[in-house]
């Protein structure tokens, strides 16, 4: 393993406590690997003037234009379209699952992704908030680019324990209702939702102008179903238990899981949401830079 890759290796990161240090380690690697920030310097170019309206910040009034035309115009900069990012972390009980060979739980992994994104966003003077949810929104940190936000960010995540069921549909609707303007929503979840009704909520969020990124975090066991002894599966999130011989249904399970994952990917495609999938034993370097870079490209092109 190269010295750079170790920053993204879940095995390595799992041994780092607390979360803040772990996230900083990850970001350090991220920065070193990107050479330059994919988001830096994109927010201060002048865009246009518009007429002052009540409620506009007086600091935004272009006094030179006022002196020439005696009319109040405010400058509109690209920074007005500066990134406001809300990582949404699923903190339902299912996220607590950690397979026997996994270095960390899905929740731990999701924390790392959220921290890394938030750090990068804040570091380039963009705003980042935080939403944790299960069957409803649990924590909501408003988006800001203040430097203390990252500490708040880490504290909230560290104080959160996954224990409740998930209701993605309700959460997304609630978030859309609460957000006054379009933002970037990065939904970090295992997406082990019953049914596909929440796909409509995704469309709704997209229709509301939000930029959507869906990061599905899964444990390798949840994909491979590697159990070979008779097993009693105790359902998390209050679901019933089942005793079965895993070897007898492994193939069927894997097929069903593959269909499930493909369904989510297609739903994201149709919703124009970016979709990423990660497993908890997978190095973050395999998708995190890509995620951030692609966002940059889309902003640049847009």
């Amino acid at each position, binding site marked *: 393993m190269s010295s750079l890759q170790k920053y993204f290796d879940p095995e390595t990161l799992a041994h780092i406590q607390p979360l803040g240090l772990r996230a900083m380690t990850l970001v350090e690697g991220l920065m070193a690997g990107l050479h330059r920030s994919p988001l830096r310097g994109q927010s201060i170019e002048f865009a246009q003037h518009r007429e002052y309206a009540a409620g506009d910040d007086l600091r935004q009034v272009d006094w030179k234009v006022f002196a020439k035309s005696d009319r109040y115009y405010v400058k509109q900069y690209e920074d007005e379209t500066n990134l406001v990012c809300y990582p949404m972390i699923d903190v339902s009980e299912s996220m607590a699952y950690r397979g026997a060979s996994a270095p960390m739980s899905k929740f731990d992994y999701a924390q790392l992704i959220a921290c890394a994104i938030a750090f990068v966003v804040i570091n380039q003077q963009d705003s980042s908030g935080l939403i944790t949810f299960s069957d409803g929104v649990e924590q909501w940190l408003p988006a800001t680019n203040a430097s203390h936000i990252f500490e708040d960010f880490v504290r909230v995540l560290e104080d959160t324990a996954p224990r409740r069921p998930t209701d993605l549909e309700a959460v997304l609707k609630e978030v859309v209702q609460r957000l006054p303007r379009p933002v970037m929503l990065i939904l970090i979840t295992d997406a082990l939702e019953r049914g596909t009704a929440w796909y409509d909520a995704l469309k709704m969020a997209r229709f509301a102008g939000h930029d959507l990124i869906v990061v599905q975090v899964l444990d390798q066991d949840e994909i491979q179903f590697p159990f070979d*002894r008779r097993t*009693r599966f*105790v359902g*998390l999130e209050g679901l019933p238990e089942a005793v079965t011989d895993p070897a007898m249904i492994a*193939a069927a399970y894997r097929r069903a899981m593959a269909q499930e994952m493909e369904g989510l990917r297609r739903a994201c495609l149709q919703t124009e949401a970016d979709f990423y999938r990660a497993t908890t034993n997978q190095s973050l370097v395999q998708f995190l830079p890509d995620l951030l870079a692609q966002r940059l490209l889309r902003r640049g092109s847009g």
Partner: protein
Amino acid sequence: MMNVFAAIGFGSGWMLAWGAAAAIPLVLHLLNRRRFDVVHWAAMHLLLRVLQKESRRVRLEQLLLLLTRVAILVLLALALARPFWNTAGQPVVEAGRPPVVWVLGIDASYSMGRKSTDGRSLMAMAKAQAEQIVQEAREGDAFVLLEIAAPCRPRIAEPTFDRGLTAAELGRLQTLDTGADMLGCAALIEQVIDDVLQTTHLPQDVRVVLFSDMGEDTWQPVMNEQAEIWQRMSRRAEIVIRALKPSAEPNLAVTDMQPDALRSLVGTPIGVQVVVENLSGQARSNLPVQLLLEDKTVASESVDLEPYGAASVGFSIRLPTEGLAVLACEIPDDALTADNERFLTVEAVGSTRILILEERPGSGKLLEIALQPTPQAENGWSVRTMTPLDAIGQDLAQWNVVVLDDGVEVTPELFDALVHFVENGGGVVCMFGPRSDPQAWQDLAGGAATEWLGFRLVEPSPQGDWRVDPLEYRSPVVAPFAGFPAAGLLTTPIFRFWKIEPTAPQVLEIDAGLQGDAPWIVHRRSGHGMVVSWLSAPEAGSVQQGVAWNAIAAWPSFVPLLQQSVRMVLDAGQAALNRTVGESLDGFAPGDVQGHITITDPTGQEHSLVPAQRPDGRRVWRFDHTDWRGVYRVQADAARVLPYSVNIDVQQSRASTVEPSVLPIASKSATPSRPLDGARASQTPVQQSMARWLLVAMLALMACENLLGIYIGRRAQ
């Protein structure tokens, strides 16, 4: 449907118990259901959906696997139980009976050689019926085969499931010339029962089927002294007796053949008395009776026989050359050929050499005169008298009889020579009188001398007039006096005699006694020879009562008694060459022969024996298989062949038959529980073994189980 099940039987039904092993997969399955890992699972929605969709398939596959594994074990247990299918479709008589161990006992005594009504011998009939049992036996039945002869021999000692082997051994059975030892038969059957009960792989039910002509001499002991044994055995096993009836064809037998003497002078006539008996109810006239010398007819007579009557035929024959010769007497073949001939080994000698060992020179003169009254005596006896001192260095083998005078000092060396002399067929006559020293005899050879004599001298009797008791003239010593009470035997003057204490009562025989049940002349056999002892020896001195022990020497009975004593010991030496079927042949190997003894039996088969070394260095041989009548020629060395004549015991010929119902065997044994006659055979269903097919099915299921496992495994990948 009931008929279908009734037509199925099991050869080893108890093996079905292994079917319980079929529960093993079930138990394992149930145990596995109770043991599982516990996983707290996140993707439970998905898993429950998969389970709902796949549970039926999973249960079906698991059930299939379980059933396959159970079926494999069930089929294995069924195959081990060796089921059979009655292809005739009709239930067999004992459809539910478990397998049994058949103990087949075939009477092989010579009377089984009689013809049955269908012309076959009784032995052939017995073998056919036994083979039918073997053929009709079920899978799982085992067989033991006994040859009931004397002795009774197991032809198949360990129960075998091999019908082919049993049939082959049955085919090899043939009648012997022996009798039938039912006591030995009972012991063997009990041994089989004990062995069967101690094993687990054999059927536990024993059925004994005995095939016999029910000769009284064979079965009488079963009714009497062996009754308890057979009753006990019949409680442990079912005993079936198959009585075989001979045809009514008459049987005549040569029942006796006695010579005047077994030794005769060359060229002098020897008288042979032959007894022929008619053992049937039909008179027979003009029956030719032939006498053969070394297979050549030398004389022939014709006799008429009344029903169940007997006739005696006398022959006189001269043996032309010195040496052993075999005489045979024959009558024409009839229903039973074994009793139509008898054999006799006799010896022609140039002279009989008798040695008298006297106490002191002249003291044996009396005995010498009695044995050879005149120098021209025609008995061919050559008598020589000497003291033991003079006899030192003499080889006793050159003598036929040694007579020990009263008071002769017997040294250990002389005693040792006498012992070997008698064992080899020599005869010794011992005289005990006033000069005998009982202590010397007691001390001789550490007490071995008293064993050899058969008695110990205790003390002289009180003075008296002891009258002679001829004991019904049974002994050859006194037999010539029978019918002549005035011939002097009964009045022989005996005043004192030695009281004795027998050391070997079972072998000491009394030839003549004295008043008060005291013995006077006794003998015992030792080896091939005989020792005769006079307990009041003739005295040459005063005959005055009160001083002398007797006045035998002056009495007319003296010479006949002494000569008869010598003749008896001479015949005893020859008697070793005339035996009855079943008796052992034995003898000493010549000292210079280190190799084998070769014996050619009457069937022409040669047997080779290795003589055994005795502690005294002498080499002895023994042959126990005298199953046939006729002449056994023993080649001890290149120069000499000893012909042993072996004759049947004619009791079987004379014996009547016994009804099985009177035997002390449980009632179920009186008749077989299942008819065994030939007519039954055609109705007997054919039993087809199903074990092979079950094994094939089991193997197929094992293959299926493997394929199913692979299929399920691949689906699970």
